[in-house]
């Protein structure tokens, strides 16, 4: 018979809590996501492929994915440094900086989008500076990169920081007693301990960047084949009432996100099995 579906419990409220949970989950999440998959099934693999397999869609998917990877890589490196500085160093304004790291989580993406565009447009503060150097930022992929760095900034820092707090200082001390330089200790002892959390943050930052829309469209320029991101293409297809096309791109993006999360899970399981922690 196996174990029962639900263990009996003296605590009341099972029906109520299960009812609220399942009905809201169904209406808000499962039904809509199911509708996308159903629509995809009705279009069929051949139809979806036909919709995706156009130069413009490939260009948009490739642009979104490529810039997201680059932005997430930047955030991986900078996020680890930032987490280290916040966790280990004491300096005036540390609390303020620590609180500010979460700004991209709290600031609406449209606000971030217009603010970044204002700064990086050719007549903006940073944009004018870059123009003098012969670099155009806003309305180019470079601008998209900056917006994606902005929205993904907190993820690595916030996953790595608590791990740094938990590092046993004796591990670093023992490394020094064994003759290792500080640089060797950081490279061979500290970084490997941060790696699983940093990878988690990297994947979250990447997943966020791939789907990001609000902060990007203002700064992107949105030129087909050049600076048009995949989510924007969905919006355009919807405005053309091309539901099949929008569905195809939507499913492609879901596949990218879920592949990412699946890979992330695999890495975590692997590292937990090997070293007994995440």
């Amino acid at each position, binding site marked *: 018979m196996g174990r029962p579906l639900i263990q009996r419990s003296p605590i009341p409220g099972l029906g109520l809590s299960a009812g609220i949970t399942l009905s809201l989950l169904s209406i808000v999440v499962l039904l809509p996501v199911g509708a996308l998959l159903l629509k995809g099934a009705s279009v069929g693999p051949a139809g979806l492929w036909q919709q995706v397999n156009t130069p413009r869609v490939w260009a948009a998917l490739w642009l979104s994915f490529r810039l997201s990877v680059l932005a997430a890589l930047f955030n991986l490196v900078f996020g680890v440094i930032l987490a280290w500085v916040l966790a280990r160093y004491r300096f005036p304004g540390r609390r303020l900086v620590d609180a500010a790291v979460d700004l991209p989580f709290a600031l609406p993406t449209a606000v971030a989008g217009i603010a970044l565009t204002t700064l990086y447009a050719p007549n903006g503060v940073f944009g004018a500076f870059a123009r003098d150097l012969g670099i155009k930022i806003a309305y180019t992929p470079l601008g998209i990169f900056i917006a994606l760095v902005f929205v993904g900034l907190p993820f690595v820092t916030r996953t790595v920081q608590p791990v740094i707090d938990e590092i046993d200082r004796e591990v670093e001390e023992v490394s020094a*007693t064994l003759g290792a330089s500080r640089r060797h200790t950081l490279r061979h002892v500290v970084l490997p301990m941060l790696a699983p959390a940093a990878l988690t943050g990297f994947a979250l930052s990447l997943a966020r960047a791939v789907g990001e829309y609000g902060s990007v469209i203002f700064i992107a320029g949105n030129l087909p084949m050049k600076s048009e991101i995949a989510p924007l293409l969905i919006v355009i297809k919807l405005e053309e009432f091309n539901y099949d096309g929008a569905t195809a791109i939507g499913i492609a993006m879901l596949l990218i996100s879920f592949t990412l999360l699946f890979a992330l899970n695999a890495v975590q399981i692997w590292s937990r099995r090997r070293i007994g922690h995440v």
Partner: protein
Amino acid sequence: MHIDIDEISKEFGATAALHPVSLSVPSGALVALLGPSGSGKTTLLRILGGLEFPNAGRVLFDGQDATNLTVQQRRAGFVFQSYALFRHMSVFDNIAYGLNARPRASRPPKAEIARRVANLLALIQLPDIGARYPSQLSGGQRQRVALARALAIEPRMLLLDEPFGALDAKVRKELRQGLRDIHDTTGLTTLFVTHDQDEAMELADLVVVMSMGRIEQIGKPADIRARPATPFVREFIAA
């Protein structure tokens, strides 16, 4: 190597962890620093290892001033109470760590490192665990791996902070003998910190009883038992 501690004092902020203390440890001795928590014994051990620096006083290794040597330069084999094994490295890599961390010029070739690790694994009587990870070891095995890792750098002395503190009573007894054997085989000057007077008396050649940042008495276990120098020592060893 023989160690002299000359009028060492240490303060953490306003609190004095060590009042000036002096101690001479003959080469090859097995010494216990015995005392309750807060007696300054761990601070003294960490100063010897180069992990803390004294506010005043000198440390001499074989008569040479070692006070300003960095922790890397001291070559003290240090074993922490928590063992502080690198949990992302195999046992082999843990033990080889100090050798691999050397600058390229003085780093032994790979085959030589492997040979030395194998010898150390044999010394701690765990020849077959090189491929395992620390999370797969028992507490006693971890302690011995930490010891082997400290020995791998060919240390000038062995410093152990509560080496048996995290173990249950039965394993503790076994490993005491293990430490004694390793000490006798290597002939290294060895200091270990403990709050357990049985452990100190049974294992050490020389016992240093400490309390509140001061050395209360230095002597052979039998002498301390027979003639406690202060009321504190009498009470502490009676407990």
